[in-house]
């Protein structure tokens, strides 16, 4: 996976803001579950949860769930969509 410059800048800015907010605004972080009281836990959780959801869902979809041909009508979906757009 190639990380673009804009993404890298966004991550750095996000980290700086998070560290600042966590250092100066949070007095006490209570433990919800393993690791949740740690520094920047929620930033890591958001990032990895997002990546995990997309990858796992896409894998499940392509492996088992998604069909390019409508299983109920037998139509090829690209063609159906193209027709709709042309209407």
């Amino acid at each position: 996976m190639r990380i673009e410059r804009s993404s890298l800048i966004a991550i750095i800015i996000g980290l700086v803001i998070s560290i600042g907010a966590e250092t100066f605004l949070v007095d006490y972080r209570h433990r919800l579950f393993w690791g949740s009281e740690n520094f920047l836990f929620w930033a890591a959780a958001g990032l990895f949860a997002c990546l995990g959801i997309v990858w796992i869902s896409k894998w499940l979809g392509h492996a088992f769930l998604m069909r390019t041909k409508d299983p109920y009508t037998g139509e090829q979906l690209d063609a159906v969509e193209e027709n709709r757009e042309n209407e």
Partner: protein
Amino acid sequence: MSSLPPVVIMLIAAALVALIPNLNTRRLITIGAPLLVLGQLFWVLDDGSSWNLTWLSLELEPLHVDRLSLVFGYVFAIAATLGGIYAWHLNDRFQQSAALGYAGTSIGVVFAGDLLTLILFWELMALTSAYLIWAGGFPQSKAAGTRYLYVHMVGGSVLLAGILLHLGAGGSLDFTIFEGSIAGWLILGGFAINAAIVPLHAWLSDAYPEAGITGSVFLSAFTTRTAVYVLARGFAGWELLIFLGVIMALYGVVFAVLENDIRRLLAYHIISQVGYMVTAVGIGTEVALNGAASHAFAHVIYKGLLFMGAGAAIYATGRRTLTALGGISDRMRTVVILYMVGAFAISAFPLFSGFVSKSMVIFAAEEEHMSWVVALLYLASVGTFLHTGLKLPYFIWFGPRRDDIKVNPVPRGMIIAMFFAAALCVGIGVYPRALYDVLPYANHYEPYTSDHIVSTLQMLGFTAIGAWLLRHKLKGESSVTLDTDWFYRKAQTPVRVLIQHPLEQFFTFFERLVHFTARKLSLLAMVPTSGWAGILKRIGYAQRNGNEAALAFLSRPPIGIVIAAILFTFSIIFLIGALT
């Protein structure tokens, strides 16, 4: 009169709308009736109000008001009003009437104090909402509406069976908490279908995107939320619901990644968000039930707003898939801004309604030390922001400008309704007391702590970064995603061949036999004395050739002979009687 059930007002309004030809009058009724109900709920009815009637020696209670029913009543009246404003441009009296009837019967369910009233409005709710799907005008609307109705008929039958078993076993007609008997499980099954509990959920993602643009706004508000209400009333504390709720929260998120149709994607997020409420009902503590009620309240408003935004995009462009849209934000700025308010609300950003309601459900799980529930609900929360807050707006409106997409102006009513819904999302987020004060139980939860705000912003901020990294993967794909409706949709053909056709042939055979016999007997009555074969042949010839005169001629003498024979018989009897 002060305790008249609000459903009566709504149903009278629905009937009037169906009969009145003047569009402006219909518009005023469509908005005025739910506003009247809202006023009634605020100023006339309060905790403890009721209305009873006796029918066939049964003591019914069509109006039973308590704090739980009031929260749902308020938000249903608000949603119906906003829906009416959004549908201001709609000139279809039957759709307007069905929408009012649907909202009214949902309110009827919420205030039903007994099980018979409940099942009555439950079924009417299915019927009126099915009409909104049928009237959608999309190629799949008719079939999807019929499937929707079938599923809800099955659900209603299961519920009715449960209620009858419950009554048969000596249970009370009052709608209270149920035990773990067979009747209780059947009633739970009926409620679970309407709550779209996985795997009984597929009707929702199948049908809602096929409804009309205004119809789907109404649909997004009522059915699943009435189910949450009845679960909270009848099954609070059933631990199975915690497990099912968490599955729903994650299931909707996974399927939303795969979805290309914008309203189907939102429909999957209804399943996900209702999962939070079902989890809260399963936890069953006071704070959890407060969480379920407050999240239902907030969700009705922001999900309505999201459906309004998606509907506006479809209305303006005539396109409904992510792959067919994009690059039109500069031509729909107001819609984009108002949609984003709904997106921030559902994603639980601070100062928006989801932040003060969703976190209450998670807090309830935290209080019960259910750390796995907390973790998985946070995971679902990430998925919610990913899809409704990032994927959907990005691929509908943003990206490189596309001049090939024609953008028509959106009616003013749609924008006004979105504005009011957005104002409520922000209002509840900024001043949560307004919502917390109407919850069923006293509230001690405080959403605005530095820890909660910073952790939420960190999590959502880095979700946005993750989405930006994977934005090419998030792009819509022209595909159909298989869901559990595959089982009953694929079963249609074998059911038709193995059950429906033989049954139809069986009944057709007897129908023909009956017709044949009736025709022969009728001919025999007309021509009783003549040779059957020849007469039938001649009458058949006359019938085939449409020769009425010949038929009448052939019929006349035998009828005369029969009448003469009857008169002669009576004369003989009379004579014998006179002589003796």
